[in-house]
């Protein structure tokens, strides 16, 4: 049994087959777990009419790192699916907002837990499920609900992906991944939901067998391409957080 390594040589190579119209999710919650280098490569690659999925559209922090909003600014995006399509601070206008308000880009606003569960459902072969979240709100208007044991629930559908871009701390050649602390966030469920998962990895790729099978966070069967993140300035790394000026 000859295992081939899933490591590829560059971020450019990792994203080169992404077609126009693809649905791509980006891991990350605040700085940890954002695949900065893969997003940068996608900006350079230029695929268009993308549907992008992630927690936020980005742009709320300084220094600004590659984010969904930059792909929007670059004219590559048809639609975003996020838990934040605007800031909750009235004075804080996201870079994404003007494209959304002008109608150039569409957006679907999804509660964060529902977003995570829709991705998990897609990966787990569950086409739809019921959730108490958002019942009685504007998001539930006109939507199908169901009363179960006296409580009202909203029907939500799986959210399958063409690609997941994620960042991990450690990987072996088979694609088994480990995340450090809150770097994990959406990555494991996005990996299960995607046809193709591409991971940028902080540390050198290890031989298969170097990670304890009990301690694998995302099994390699869900991971298709690995790229080692080079040290700065060639690779992009999380930085200390500074609040965005407002």
């Amino acid at each position, binding site marked *: 049994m000859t295992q081939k390594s899933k490591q590829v040589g560059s971020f450019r190579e990792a994203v080169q087959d992404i077609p126009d119209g693809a649905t791509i999710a980006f891991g990350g*919650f*605040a*700085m*940890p*777990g954002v695949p900065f280098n893969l997003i940068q490569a996608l900006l350079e690659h230029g695929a268009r009419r993308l549907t992008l999925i992630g*927690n936020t559209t980005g742009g709320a*922090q300084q220094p600004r790192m590659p984010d969904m909003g930059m792909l929007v600014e670059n004219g590559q995006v048809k639609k975003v699916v996020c*838990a*934040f*399509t*605007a*800031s*909750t601070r*009235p004075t804080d206008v996201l870079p994404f*907002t003007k494209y*959304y*308000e002008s109608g150039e880009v569409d*957006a679907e*606003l*999804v*509660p*964060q*837990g*529902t977003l*995570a*569960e829709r*991705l*998990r459902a897609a990966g787990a072969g569950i086409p739809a499920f019921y*959730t*108490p*979240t*958002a*019942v*009685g*709100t*504007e*998001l539930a208007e006109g939507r199908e609900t169901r009363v179960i044991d006296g409580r009202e629930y909203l029907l939500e559908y799986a959210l399958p992906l063409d690609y997941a871009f994620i960042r991990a*701390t450690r990987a072996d050649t088979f694609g088994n991944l480990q*995340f*450090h*602390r*809150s*770097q*994990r*966030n*959406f*990555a*494991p*469920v996005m990996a299960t939901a995607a046809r193709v998962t591409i991971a940028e990895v902080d540390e050198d790729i290890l031989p298969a067998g170097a990670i304890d099978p009990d301690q694998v*966070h995302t099994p390699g069967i869900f991971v298709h391409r690995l790229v080692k993140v080079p040290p700065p300035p060639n690779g992009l*790394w*999380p*930085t*200390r*957080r500074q609040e965005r000026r407002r």
Partner: protein
Amino acid sequence: MSGSANGLTRQQMADRIAFEFQDGWIVNLGVGIPTMCSNTDIGDRDITYHSENGVIGYGPIAPAGEEDLNLVNAGGQNVTLRPGAAVVHHADSFGIIRGGRIDVTVMGAYEVACNGDFANWKITGQKGGGIGGAMDLAACAKRVFIIMEQITRSGAPRLVAQCALPVTARRVVKLVATNYGLFEPTGDGFRLREIAPGITLDEVRATVGCKLTVPDNLPQVRLANQ
């Protein structure tokens, strides 16, 4: 941002809410003032702080220079972990929330209505909004506590008869701390439980947008753990 010009400071509002936390509770703190609850001294009560991103059992903000850049709370601040902490992924983290394991979620809000509705994700006229984990938490936590200023920047009440803004969840708020005092929604109004030092009852009455019930012996807001 600075503390309120009137009544309680931001930290005092957070403290007052934190005094309500009971031993053994699992607590989720929202972005902004709520995160300050974890600074409050509540004695030897054992609290597990949960963050939407899957961190269970975080501790204080990390000292400058000692941050783990892959470890943040819901507000994106670099935090520390306390012994017994665990990390799960996002779907499991919201499984904890929807599964009813969160004893209290503390959030900011634009408005709270007297029936327990509240609004904190969308501003009038805005396209889009910022829901984050608020709808999951509000719908599923055992208790929702709100911390907010008593009035808007333009002087309008935030404690109202019914929400003008799109709600985050309905009939869920149990307790509200503002810079003017501590309030409970009663269905048809608010009950003032405690009043902030330096704030008069008339000032409170003038800034609540619906019926207000005031007990005979109204205490001042408790500002120390007991």
